[in-house]
């Protein structure tokens, strides 16, 4: 009890001190000569977040880059050896390839499914019910999602697999594959029967990307749906009068109109795909050729305790996000120019 009270008191005092500090700085700035006042005032308000960004983001990022240049114990400077390692070791190379598959397949499918659902749900009598249904998976934490799909894909010895139950009745399917006496969906080996880590990425990773799409499609549907509703009616009518079929109207008028929304959703999904960790960790833990960069980073750094390669993998994610951000910025700028924004 005493602990809680003192914690509360300290919190209040800290907040009051921060407010007092800001107030004092604002007061001081107000007394500055006029030509400095505006700029200085902005800095007063930027100051707390600048401090937070520096401590919480900038310093760790620089330290991570530094660590990636040291050996796994963080003692010896090894230059780019860790980077060479990541790209020459079969296991980590597969990891990079898997992550790129997540980004590519996951993003394209999420955008496509979202657009299709938004288009066909638009104006339907059960539109809001349909959209709620597809939105729901996105409300579950990704770890929960992973666990649920673990059950869907489950094979022996846990005889609870939903897919197995469904496919039981389909004639022509072999009684078992992947070893054991039943159908294994997440194969305990990599693609083509080659054991990991030397296997190619295959059906396992694809099955996990399906889970990712299931989790992402809902929010993308909702966003696209709102964007499609924002297309002016007169534009659609003009296209109809101009002789466009529904399909031509959608592809030539609606899609270009909501382009900046598509770019945004694609960017968000790409970043989510690059960070893919929860689903992998909750289903296979990265085994059977399914590891992603983020999962590999976790395993390398926190399970195996190898700080050099771990930091390198973290930097790799960081580097891969940069071009996505640049492309996003450019596409947004083009879209704004088009709309006269």
């Amino acid at each position: 009890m005493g602990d809680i009270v003192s914690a509360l008191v300290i919190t209040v005092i800290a907040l009051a001190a921060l407010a007092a500090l800001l107030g004092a700085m604002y007061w001081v700035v107000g007394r500055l000569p006029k030509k400095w006042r505006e700029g200085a005032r902005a800095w007063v308000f930027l100051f707390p977040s600048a401090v937070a960004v520096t401590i919480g983001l900038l310093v760790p990022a620089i330290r991570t880059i530094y660590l990636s240049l040291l050996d796994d114990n963080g003692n010896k400077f090894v230059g780019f050896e860790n980077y060479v390692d990541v790209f020459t070791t079969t296991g980590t190379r597969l990891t990079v390839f898997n992550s790129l598959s997540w980004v590519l397949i996951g993003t394209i499918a999420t955008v496509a499914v979202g657009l299709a659902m938004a288009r066909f749900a638009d104006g339907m009598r059960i539109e809001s019910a349909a959209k709620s249904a597809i939105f729901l998976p996105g409300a579950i934490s990704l770890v929960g999602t992973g666990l649920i799909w673990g059950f869907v894909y489950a094979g022996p010895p846990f005889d609870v697999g939903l897919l197995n139950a469904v496919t039981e009745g389909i004639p022509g399917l072999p009684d078992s594959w992947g070893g054991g006496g039943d159908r294994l969906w997440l194969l305990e080996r990599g693609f083509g029967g080659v054991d990991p880590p030397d296997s190619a990425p295959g059906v396992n990773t694809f099955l996990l990307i399906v889970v990712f799409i299931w989790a992402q499609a809902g929010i993308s549907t909702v966003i696209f749906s709102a964007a499609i509703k924002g297309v002016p009616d007169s534009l659609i009518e003009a296209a109809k009068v101009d002789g466009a079929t529904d399909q031509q109207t959608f592809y030539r008028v609606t899609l270009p109109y909501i382009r900046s929304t598509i770019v945004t959703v694609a960017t968000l999904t790409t970043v989510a795909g690059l960070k893919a960790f929860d689903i992998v960790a909750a289903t296979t833990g990265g085994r059977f050729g399914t590891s992603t960069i983020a999962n590999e980073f976790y395993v390398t750094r926190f399970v195996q305790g190898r700080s050099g390669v771990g930091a390198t993998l973290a930097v790799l994610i960081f580097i891969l996000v940069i071009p996505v951000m640049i492309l996003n910025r450019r596409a947004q700028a083009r879209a704004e120019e088009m709309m006269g924004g």
Partner: protein
Amino acid sequence: MATITLEKINKVYPNGFHAIHDLDLDIADTEFLVLVGPSGCGKSTALRMVAGLEEITNGEMRIGDRIVNEVEPKDRDIAMVFQNYALYPHMSVYDNIGFALKLAKTPKDETDRRIREAARILELDEQLDRKPAQLSGGQRQRVAMGRAIVRQPAAFLMDEPLSNLDAKLRVQMRAEIASLQRELGVTTVYVTHDQVEAMTMGDRVAVLKDGFLQQVDTPQNLYDRPQNVFVAAFIGSPSMNLFEGTLTLDSSGQGGSLTLGSQAISIPSEVLAARPALAAYDGQPLIYGIRPEDMEDASLDSRPDDQCIHGEVSLVEALGAEILVHFGVDAAPVDSGDPDAVVELGDTAVVVGRFNPRSRIRLRDSAKVAVHAERLSFFDSSTRLAIWD
């Protein structure tokens, strides 16, 4: 080129709102027909039904000889100009104008020739590579026109195409659209709420109110012989002054007088001779109207005293070539039924007269105003229909 025929067209929305009642219109080939009316009168709905953007509840719509009730907009061979222009923001002016031709798979060189021809007519040659966002309001309006004329369609449908332009540009584009239409000879249906546009542009004007067609006629006939109180008040600016009064014929039956509140206007015999039906209204209340230009400052007009009225001047608007004088009389004002008009309340009607600028009438004067009684319009006070015969 085609005729457009509407036969007993009705529009009932799913919520039960009956927007158009038994609308009959015969629009001739190459005709410029204007649909005009106050907001909510159903003029845009009617146009959208011609375009196929609005379903027809019942009745028959023909473009040329073809019944188009169930025909998709894209197959009706019509071009439409929207109020907000509805330009495709991601396409250049060139692609905006050429979009319909591209969809119709017109050969590339012909498409190009027609786009450039349209751009030349509309003076958009310099803007072909620009996006709509980079154009001025007037240029956007021209692109919308270009998109219509490049099609060489059976009909142009225009839904208040000038209402987003400033006043000066609107006057200029009004003339340009009218002359362009005459040059191209394409049947045109034009919707507007602006009766000046209607009068200046249309070969004929159809006046709508509450989904009912009030009158279709040439602009001058609408102005000179309105068929009911609403058309009389709606066409003309400032509006016709409308009053409720009682007609009393004198014993000879040759002349008579009309009450205007506590005043009276003497009615010359030729008015009654031209309209024998008025005899039936002897001693009865009726509605009558005076156009502003049919009144004059009495000091500039040699009318007998019994054709003059008096009222206190509440506003004088000097327009240079004329002055508009507002003055009050103690007669009950008549509500013409125009939802956009300012409804006067109480027992005082404000009368607007269009006087010669040499008039010396000043604010708050008690003005003596000559009424050209031979130009009066009369309406039955219950049916509100005009009495011309």
